[in-house]
């Protein structure tokens, strides 16, 4: 019987297989950041161990760092200590680090792909759940905890139990104005936050093939939000075109050998998935969340649901709690929800295409009174590219704040946070209670909806701007 893409990548990385044990898998690329690594480096030191493959390891600073005044020392002493600890650890153990101020600094999941280090058929891990982003290249990529970070540093391997496979086939064509973010939010609302539990997911079908590399990263990024271990997309010409000129892409004859290998990774026609989900792209519309997990979403044209609309008692209780936290009344049209803050950025939607999309919508408009709009490039390279295209000028002219690169308001670990009770439309990936700051309220949206919302002052789409 044939094998799926995920199974082929898995099989190529088996270092050791034994009865009644998980496989020992080789890791091609280990990405490191300041938050989940200090205790791992300490563990190495305590045991007198070294890093097995510094040449397969890359570190950057993203979670803690400010996006303003980046030439100044980090004001929060605890954050500063954590960042300085990463710098010391990288120097001591010989790890390449792109620190704040470096041209290749940025969110770890934006930096890996843009350097060309994320390649098809590789295994990629990082102490961060959004490592699933790299699956867009046909890599088997997943987040790990700090104990596993230490394990990979010491051994360049991980023990992993074999996973089940799932196909998410997205048929048809996305309507104009509907993005990859809408697609994945609609998918999560359909399957639930636990729908992917225990599966490696392969996204396929006409609508997936039609996505750009960056849009594919948006989809794979959110795999963890419905519980999947990893999400991948078979590499094709879109992938190769994106990679070809990247600094770490194979060169010359190596490139040809690599591409030949990558083409053979596609799922065999007679391969079987353990589960299949089908989605019709042509039926999708702009999608936004109303609750406190990414599965609590509806089309922008819909209203806040009533808890008793949920048959499952757990879902009903979760909806009641979410509505209380979000201070929303059932029946309120989503478009009537006013926000205080709009955040464009994160490893989900902080790449150049996302910024181009948002800039094109906001161009010629102005951010509504009393709305704070933060535009945060995912990396310094994205920022420089955007500035070369004049996007920063567009954002600033519209009244938005143009920031330095980092995780920023996605997760409340740096100065960019919501105040208690503040409400945001955010292109990030999690609307959990307190995610963007204690007491903050998050609506997950696409860059299109974010830009339109900033102008309107309430949730809306670019189409609403035309009518306004």
């Amino acid at each position, binding site marked *: 019987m044939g094998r799926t893409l995920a199974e082929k990548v898995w099989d190529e990385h088996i*270092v*050791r297989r034994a009865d*009644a*044990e998980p496989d*020992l898998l*080789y890791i091609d690329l280990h990405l490191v950041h300041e*938050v*989940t690594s*200090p*205790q791992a480096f300490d*563990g190495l030191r305590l045991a007198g*161990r070294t890093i097995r493959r510094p*040449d*397969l390891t*890359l570190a950057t600073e993203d979670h803690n760092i400010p996006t303003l005044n980046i030439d100044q020392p980090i004001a929060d002493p*605890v954050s500063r*200590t954590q960042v300085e*600890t990463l710098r010391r650890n990288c120097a001591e153990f010989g790890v*390449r680090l792109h620190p704040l101020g470096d041209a290749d600094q940025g969110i770890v999941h934006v930096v890996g792909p843009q*350097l*060309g*280090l994320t390649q098809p058929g*590789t295994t990629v891990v990082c*102490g*961060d*759940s959004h490592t699933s982003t790299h699956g867009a290249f046909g890599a088997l990529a*997943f*987040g*790990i*905890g*700090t*104990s*596993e970070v230490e*394990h990979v540093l*010491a*051994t*360049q*391997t991980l*023990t992993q139990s074999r996973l089940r496979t799932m196909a998410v086939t997205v048929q048809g064509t996305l309507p104009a104005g509907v993005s990859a973010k809408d697609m994945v939010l609609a998918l999560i609302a359909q399957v639930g*936050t*636990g729908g992917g*539990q225990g599966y490696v997911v392969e996204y396929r079908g006409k609508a997936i093939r039609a996505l750009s590399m960056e849009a594919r990263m948006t989809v794979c990024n959110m795999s*963890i939000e419905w*519980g999947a271990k990893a999400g991948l997309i078979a590499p094709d010409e879109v992938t190769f075109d994106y990679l070809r000129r*990247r*600094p*770490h892409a194979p060169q010359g004859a*190596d490139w040809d*050998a*690599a591409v030949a290998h990558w083409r053979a990774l596609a799922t065999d026609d007679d391969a079987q998935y353990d589960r299949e989900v089908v989605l019709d792209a042509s039926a999708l519309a702009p999608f936004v969340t109303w609750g406190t997990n990414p599965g609590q979403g509806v089309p922008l044209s819909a209203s806040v649901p009533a808890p008793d609309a949920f048959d499952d008692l757990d879902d009903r209780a*979760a909806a009641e709690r979410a509505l209380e936290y979000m201070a929303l009344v059932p029946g309120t049209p989503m478009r009537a929800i006013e926000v205080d803050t709009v955040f464009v950025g994160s490893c989900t939607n902080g790449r150049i295409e996302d910024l181009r999309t948002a800039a094109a919508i906001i161009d010629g408009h102005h951010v509504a009174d009393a709305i704070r709009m933060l535009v945060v490039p995912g990396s310094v390279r994205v920022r420089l590219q955007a500035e070369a295209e004049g996007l920063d000028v567009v954002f600033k002219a519209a009244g938005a704040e143009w920031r330095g690169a980092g995780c920023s308001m996605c*997760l*409340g*670990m740096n100065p960019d946070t919501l105040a208690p009770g503040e409400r945001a439309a955010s292109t990030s990936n*999690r609307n*959990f*209670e*307190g*995610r963007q700051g*204690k007491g903050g309220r998050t609506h997950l949206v696409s860059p299109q909806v974010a830009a339109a919302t900033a102008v309107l002052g309430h949730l809306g789409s670019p189409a609403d701007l035309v009518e306004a």
Partner: protein
Amino acid sequence: MDRFTTLTGTAVPLRRSNVDTDQIIPSAYLKRVSRTGFEDGLFAAWRGDPHFVLNRPESAGASILVAGSDFGTGSSREHAVWALQDYGFKAVLSPRFGDIFGSNAGKAGLLAAQTDAKVVAALWDLLDRQPHAAVTVDLQARTIVAGADGDRIEDSFDIDDYTRWRLLEGLDDVAVTLSHEQDITAYEAGRPSWKPRTLPARVEAPVEAQ
């Protein structure tokens, strides 16, 4: 890592599903570089509520947390496991765990016991009536036992064989893997030369080959 065999203690009913790791420990507590001392961050946003279950006097000293489904979803932060352990929990029961949380728990020595939803509900009811009821989690036998007579609850729980073995033996994962170092070296010898390397660093776009 300490061995885990059988645990008998009191338990806290956490009647919530989808408790993500941002709720278990908010990100503000992740800035520390230490491996211990995260107990103050555990459920920090909810601890301000005097009615929150952990704030009840009868919750003091509990070593088992009985949670709803999809416990530990979201972020990969192992700090969630450490915070539970630092607070005094040695086992968490839930019908389903977030993948990375479950894996982190096994590595750090916290038992994540996948427990039937009906058993979780029965334990919640029992603990509401008898907050000091002793609950026994036996990893060797994979069983949960609580209550007495008409209230007695006894059922099995799920945990993968490998994690169970490692917890029972209290093994250091890295040492186990390094005992297979010759397999790693042999694998590395066969890796294609075009696989990416981070060193030496290449940061500028390369000149196209003619």
